[in-house]
């Protein structure tokens, strides 16, 4: 497994694919940063202008900015006071990018790894591996190489976002930056592993990489629909329980300062990752290659 992991990772890093993926991820993050930055500045500017017109003092402008910050923070954390307090020093733009990242990351992961297994089963190159290694080792090696690549890409992008936020907000202290960078990175990784495993499962189900990709997107859409619909229904409707079957439901507490809350989310993602991986192994173990 370790040999396959190292070899697949080396191949991915040497190929242009890692660069393309990095570029794609950077472009999306940069777009979000620019849009969110622009909207925030515009809003703040309008509020300041209004306050000046009404003859308010500079402290009132600062208070209004703080209220706006708290409002957005409350929206992003579902008004969880512990989480709001823990994230109060993080620039709002970073939080918004993080939230949006969690939305697009599953699709990005699907694009990254849709052919990890199907790309070898279709042209049968997997046959060269299975006479040398267990199918479980092949699967885990490929899963780990995808996860490691993602780990690196997310770190690079998160670092860039935090540095950008530091440039925009000189009061964003280095210590707070470093601690939150690790926290955000860790949360993204915990979240991502379940989706990397889902992509591994989808890739194991089909011989054609294109079909794997489409099926992966369909599943992501179904998960999103399950989460959205079950949130929209009334509290008495049994459909509300469907949300527990969607991985995205558990993303809310990934940045929670209380260990129990974070561990609950983390355990849910670990369980999803395990289920998807066991499913992928079950498929690969029993199929003709």
């Amino acid at each position: 497994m370790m040999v396959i992991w190292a070899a697949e990772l080396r191949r991915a890093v040497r190929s242009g694919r890692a660069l393309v993926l990095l570029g794609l991820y950077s472009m999306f993050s940069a777009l979000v940063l620019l849009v969110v930055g622009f909207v925030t500045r515009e809003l703040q500017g309008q509020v300041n202008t209004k306050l000046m017109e009404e003859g308010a003092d500079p402290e009132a402008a600062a208070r209004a900015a703080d209220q706006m910050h708290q409002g957005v923070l409350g929206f992003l954390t579902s008004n969880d006071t512990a989480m709001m307090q823990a994230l109060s020093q993080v620039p709002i733009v970073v939080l918004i990018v993080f939230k949006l990242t969690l939305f697009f990351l599953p699709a990005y992961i699907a694009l990254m790894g849709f052919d990890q297994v199907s790309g070898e089963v279709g042209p049968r190159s997997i046959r060269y591996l299975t006479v040398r290694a267990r199918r479980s080792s092949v699967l885990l090696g490929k899963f780990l190489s995808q996860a490691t690549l993602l780990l690196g890409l997310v770190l690079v992008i998160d670092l860039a976002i935090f540095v950008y936020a530091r440039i925009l907000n000189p009061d964003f202290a280095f210590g707070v930056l470093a601690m939150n960078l690790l926290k955000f990175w860790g949360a993204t990784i915990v979240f991502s592993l379940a989706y990397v495993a889902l992509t591994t499962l989808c890739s194991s189900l089909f011989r054609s990489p294109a079909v794997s990709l489409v099926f992966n997107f369909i599943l992501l859409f179904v998960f999103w629909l399950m989460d959205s619909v079950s949130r929209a229904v009334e509290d008495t409707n049994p459909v509300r329980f469907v949300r527990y079957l969607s991985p995205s439901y558990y993303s809310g507490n990934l940045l929670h300062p209380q260990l129990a809350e974070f561990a609950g989310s983390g355990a849910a993602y670990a369980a999803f990752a395990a289920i998807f991986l066991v499913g992928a192994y079950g498929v690969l173990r029993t199929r003709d290659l």
Partner: protein
Amino acid sequence: MSELAIELSGVSKRFGPKVAVNAVSLQVRQGDVFGLIGPNGAGKTTTFSMMCGYLYPSEGSLKVMGVSPTTPGALKGRVGALPQDAVLPPGWEVGSLLMYWARLSDLPQPEHEARGALEKVGLMEAWKVQTQALSHGMAKRAAMAQALMGRPPLVLLDEPTAGLDPRIAAQVRQVIKDMKGTQTVVVSSHNLQELEELCDAAAILDKGSLAQAGTMSELTGQGAEFRVQIARGDVIIPEITSLPGVIGARMEGTDVLCVRFDGQAHKAEEVISRTVGHLIQHQTLILGVSRGRRLEDRVLQLL
């Protein structure tokens, strides 16, 4: 350990309603070069794939080097396989890919093994070449090289010379001959002349079923018949059949005498010499003598 390298008992493989292999039973002895023979769609590659653990049999049991090939990790280090239609993974240099696979097989000196195997198939110049840039013949040889690394006790080769130019094909045949006796080799091929030259034993498959299996001598009748090509002169059949050891004789066309003999009780060379001596004594001129029949003739007769 059993003397059998491979043992198939009533093995069948179905793909939906289609029966690709039907209740095939055969045995491959250790150290033999064994041929899988048959026309397109006979079930050679399916049988080969089950031996390598790529396909699960629908019925029956397989033992490869004493273990079931579908047991996870069972074939590691025991089998080298050249699958017929498996594409080499893209994005690798040939040398790096072979070293990776050698590491995966736990071979102690991956680079040494990779270079040695490439040398055997005459492809050292491709060490730094990307797999997607290889020609068909080069890719085939690179795939062959990976099957040879580490000198596994069993080597399974599906169409090893298909698409190779005659010089390289001869080189590959020599590699197989060199393995004879020390490694067991299973070769699946359409090239009957090649199989006749290489194999100690073979199985002839047709429409998924086993038509015949045995040693090459049994299949071609080398121990039971020979042919004499007559240039000029008369052959008196009753006189030939009365010679010691001869069971029967007949003319095939006007100039080929086919003689069947009791290969158990009499040595082939004795019966052949006796018959040829008799013909020469009777002023019959001979162009040549050949033992048995061509494998191709036997296969065409069976299928």
